[in-house]
């Protein structure tokens, strides 16, 4: 038992040295997570800011000008063109000078004055459907606020209707960044641990040192732990870095408990190391290990709820996501980070990860032994 422990410690030390001794590889392990956080934090957003738009005001009245200035002041849109006639719209949109064009009808003000329904038209560039439909949603909110205010100012105050108050829990300003950055803790660490474990075994196999390792007194599970532990350690360090960037740079308040977060990270990293070891045990060289990791990582990332919600997927794909450890990691980090979730709330995710780790790690150990035979 003690001997086994010594052997494991020796192997872990050797692995850590192999990973960290090269300054170039030290840099590639710890600088990219920070850069990725910054890129995701600033670029990965579905919120609209200063999206260029054109306006064609056929009414040229007080009401239409007031609507335009309401849109201008909103911050989501930036007016880059004020058009004179409808024939100017196609070029503006087709050549990507604007993302949308707003047309205000000729008798806009007269209709409002008469207590009738005035008309505006929003033409959006469907090449980016997401921006297009978000922008149309924004315009609709802005106009309904505008017309409400206009009614109040023009003596139509007692209008029937339903007032809807919206409250956004856990992320009051609805910032994409608030869910993106915590989700990166799982995504980035998985990418690294998977590739690191897969490559470390493949590298030894390519160099022929893996066979040497197998003829030493090491048992297969000892080799497995020796390979798994250092990767997990690197993963935890990266997770810490991302947490620091999230709080110190982006100032996203951490609502939950660090102990629970690290506990769930350890569990998640064990599951992803298991997958990495599994890939390495079936690949013959580094190229195969690398490509295997990319092919596995791609669906994991796309089907994790990172970019689009899982509930929008067709049900077959939704069932498949139950096999995806990243799905649980993202769900857990979001819940812990933003919702201050306790252990009880996280039981389903924790159980699922435990099952994944309990299947992949023994299989990897078995594959090592199988090679030995």
């Amino acid at each position: 038992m003690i001997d086994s422990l010594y052997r494991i410690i020796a192997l872990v030390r050797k692995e850590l040295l192999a990973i960290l001794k090269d300054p170039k590889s030290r840099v590639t392990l710890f600088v990219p997570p920070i850069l990725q956080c910054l890129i995701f934090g600033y670029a990965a957003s579905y919120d609209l800011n200063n999206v260029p738009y054109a306006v064609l005001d056929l009414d040229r009245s007080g009401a239409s000008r007031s609507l335009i200035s309401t849109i201008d002041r909103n911050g989501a849109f930036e007016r880059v063109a004020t058009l004179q006639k409808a024939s100017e719209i196609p070029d503006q949109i087709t050549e990507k000078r604007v993302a949308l064009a707003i047309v205000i009808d000729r008798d806009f003000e007269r209709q409002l004055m008469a207590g009738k329904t005035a008309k505006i038209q929003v033409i959006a560039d469907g090449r980016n459907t997401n921006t297009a439909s978000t922008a149309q949603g924004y315009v609709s909110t802005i106009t309904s606020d505008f017309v409400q205010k206009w009614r109040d100012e023009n003596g139509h105050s007692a209008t029937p209707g339903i007032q809807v108050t919206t409250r956004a829990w856990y992320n009051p300003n609805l910032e994409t960044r608030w869910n993106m950055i915590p989700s990166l803790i799982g995504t980035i660490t998985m990418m690294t641990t998977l590739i690191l474990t897969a490559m470390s075994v493949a590298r030894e196999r390519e160099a022929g040192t893996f066979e040497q390792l197998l003829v030493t007194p090491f048992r297969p599970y000892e080799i497995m732990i020796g390979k798994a532990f250092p990767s997990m350690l690197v993963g935890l360090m990266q997770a810490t870095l991302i947490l620091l960037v999230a709080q110190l740079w982006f100032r996203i308040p951490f609502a939950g408990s660090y102990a629970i977060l690290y506990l769930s990270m350890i569990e998640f990293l064990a599951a992803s190391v298991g997958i990495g070891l599994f890939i390495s045990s079936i690949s013959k060289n580094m190229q195969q290990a690398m490509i295997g990791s990319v092919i596995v990582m791609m669906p994991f990332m796309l089907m994790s709820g990172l970019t689009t919600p899982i509930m929008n997927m067709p049900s077959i794909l939704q069932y498949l996501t139950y096999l995806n450890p990243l799905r649980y990691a993202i769900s857990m980090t979001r819940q812990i980070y933003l919702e201050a979730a306790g252990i009880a709330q996280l039981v389903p995710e924790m159980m699922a990860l435990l099952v994944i780790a309990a299947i992949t790690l023994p299989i990897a150990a078995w594959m090592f032994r199988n090679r030995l035979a």
Partner: protein
Amino acid sequence: MIGEMNRERRQSIRRIIALTRKETWQILRDPSAIAIGVILPLLMLILFGYGLSFDIKNLPVAVVVEHASEDTNSAVSALRLSRYFVVHPTSSMAEAEHLMAKQTVSAILRFPPHFSRDVTRGDATLLVAVNATDANSARIASSYVKGAINTWLARDAKDGRAEPEIPNIVIENRMWFNDANQSQWFLVPGVIVLVMTLIGALLTSLVIAREWERGTFEALFATPVRPGEILLSKTIPYFVMGMLGLALSVIGSIVLFGIPLRGSLWLLVVVSSLYLLVALGMGLVISSVTKSQFLANQITFLVTYLPATMLSGFIFDIRSMPMAAQVVTLIFPARYFVSSLQTIFLAGDVWAVILPDMAVLAVMASILMRIALKSTRKIIG
């Protein structure tokens, strides 16, 4: 003299063919290269086409009705009929909040106790609470709930109630190039960018870094082969592979998802070749700088794959990014390719968009190839 030059050229071509053949065999022998050229494009097509969607459906909503009435019943059944929601009826706010904490529902809609009376009087207030951990979905969800309530109000609630004419504004929404607002049309062409990046940059950098690692590159230099010939024979097979990936993705997007190809095919091929050359150039330069498979992989991922997904306008719109981030996107080739791809697929041959994109890609390709050639030459000298 002329005969001498001709012979020299013939030999050069022979060397290139021989090296290309060797490289091709090497690709075909390793199943992983086939996996990245064939399986990965198909996998991504399916995932992007079927898996990723911004269109909310089956949103679980807890509906709190403390005092049921005809109006609340008809409003709730209007929600039930909509394909966007799955209604979980509850009788108290506490119960709904519990469901939200358990992640069973992602939104709560609360009817006030005297809803019917308030609607008649015209001052009803509904509360919509959304779980905003996913901000984008939360925003869409709350606007869908509002929309459903307004539709209900316009259609059902006014039965038997006098509705005075009030000033209002209707918006006529139109989406050009994609009338049905299908997010697949926008996402699937992006698969081509990822496939090209993975084959062109990631695979190439890995293969060449391995040659550096094993010292077989130096061995090649000892032969009469010239640096330009080496580079050419290294790029040709991967170029062909990238083009196969392109063919597969284009056929897949048209056949599986009915995405229109409104521009011309030849233009699509030309723009894609330019991007592929840039990607290959990046792969060559990165591998000759790092000379290690692990490092080459990490760096390629960071400077090619990540920008291709995040900073290209393929998922996240560049126009919404902060100014600094927009400037950063300019140095990565992917944004020019994505912009041209989306235009060729959905809008047509819009030269004002495509020509500038092509020009930038061509300049990038020639600079990168020159650097790659120089770094190969330097080793010899």
